[in-house]
């Protein structure tokens, strides 16, 4: 479904991605794990088009999208819930969700999906007409994910969805992510909480200073001694 081939990205003169090659198959949950500054967020931002690679190619459903502008990638089925939530704080919860469905025109489908989001995150329904900036951190995270889902994506990219959430909410959140995946959405997940991420993923990539250091079956990586030592705090 998604393929990155030797993607290099620069911030000014700094080479942030040093030739990343990875793929995501339809129906999978794939995790990117690694320390701060390893290039996880940069990888997601490059896939959604906010950053343009200096070299390398990005293919989506066998189509070269390396230079497709970001807003068109949303229309192709790629949704990105960015790092730090980035909800529109001055807009209401409802308006945030509407923007998630910006490119869709099926009124009924949109209504149905908003109700589906409310069934996933009942708390959002109570806050419907409140400015999103007044939500708690956890609620904002739900809104960010719900907003990305409103695009009805084939590929959903989540950047640090558990950041700043209470442990009980994290469990709940990961159940929802598995749920979304079971309903047919492919997921590319970036997480600090590597253990959690690996436990719901089929495959994973370990990034280190802009390169793929290891890749493979998520369960195997979870048992790998190096990974354990470096990222799972064992």
């Amino acid at each position: 479904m998604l393929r990155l081939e030797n993607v290099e990205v620069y911030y000014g003169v700094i080479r942030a991605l040093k030739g990343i090659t990875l793929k995501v198959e339809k129906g999978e949950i794939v995790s990117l794990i690694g320390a701060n500054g390893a290039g996880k967020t940069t990888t997601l931002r490059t896939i959604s088009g906010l950053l343009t690679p200096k070299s390398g190619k990005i293919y989506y459903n066998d189509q070269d999208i390396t230079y497709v502008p970001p807003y068109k990638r949303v229309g192709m089925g790629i949704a990105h819930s960015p790092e730090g939530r980035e909800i529109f704080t001055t807009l209401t919860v409802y308006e945030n969700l509407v923007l998630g469905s910006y490119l869709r025109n099926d009124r009924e489908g949109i209504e149905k999906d908003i109700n589906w989001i409310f069934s996933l995150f009942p708390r959002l329904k109570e806050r419907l007409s409140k400015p999103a900036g007044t939500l708690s951190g956890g609620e904002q995270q739900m809104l960010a994910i719900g907003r990305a889902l409103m695009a009805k994506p084939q590929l959903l990219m989540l950047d640090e969805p558990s950041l700043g959430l209470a442990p009980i909410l994290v469990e709940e959140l990961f159940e929802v992510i598995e749920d979304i995946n079971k309903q047919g959405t492919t997921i590319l997940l970036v997480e600090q909480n590597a253990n959690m991420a690996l436990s719901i993923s089929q495959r994973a990539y370990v990034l280190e200073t802009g390169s793929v250091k290891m890749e493979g079956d998520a369960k195997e990586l979870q048992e790998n001694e190096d990974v354990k030592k470096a990222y799972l705090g064992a």
Partner: protein
Amino acid sequence: MFSLPYVLQQFINAIILGSIYALVAIGLSMVYGILRLINFAHGDILMIGAYTGLFLLTLYKAPFAIVLIVPMLVGGLIGVIVERVAYRPLRKAPEVALLITSLAVSMFIENLAIMVLSPRPRRFRIPSFLSKSHFYGAINFRNIDILIVILTVVLVVVLTLFVKKTKIGIAMRATAESINTSYLMGINVNNIIMLTFAIGSLLAGVAGMMFASKYGRIEPFMGFLPGLKAFVASVIGGIGSLPGAVMGGYLLGFAEIFFVGFLPPQLSGYRDGFVFLLLIIVLLIRPSGIFGQAEKREV
């Protein structure tokens, strides 16, 4: 002391002037909200609107409805062209580069106007049914004044509904909050920016017509001072905020008229200086304006 009719007359004058400032301030404020650009060329759109109106009136003897609508459209079109040619190539440049470019665009338009239209001021005469005055004792106002106020209210209400209720309006507010996140929603940000310039310039175009109708005289530099004052108005209201721009426009209208009307006449020559003094005071006391929010910048 001042008589009641005199005070009322000052109120009326203030509302008329405030309406024009409000219309010009909206465009400045909306553009600033998205691009963090103080568009110095905005006042020149006002001038273009006024000249367009003049030619329609004198050369084509066009009906006044057309004289109102066409300058709006021309203003909007020029605004879009300026954005496309001068500002869009600088999308990734530092904000100060945009600011300097807008100064250059302003000088370019003004000097082009001098070359093409001559620097000589021209009389701007509106049809007689619009210059007809109503007298109520010592109070008087003209039909054009009523038109200015009503048209401003209608435009502000329509624009507010558009920005509040429509999907594109929501997208405009989203883009003002974060361009990158708006991209992730599938919003074509360039189109939204273009639309913002179109709307703002449209209002500046019609404000130019109002300005010309009110003062009866136009010249190539006529947009400079109203442009600066609209900037002051949008800062007072909280730059980036639509209700703030409207409120700021009217507040400035009142401040300026009252300054001239109620202080000793020797001071009235300082009315423009007073406006900028007001700006300094507002910036000292409440830098983010009445409706403004503390700046949240993307890093």
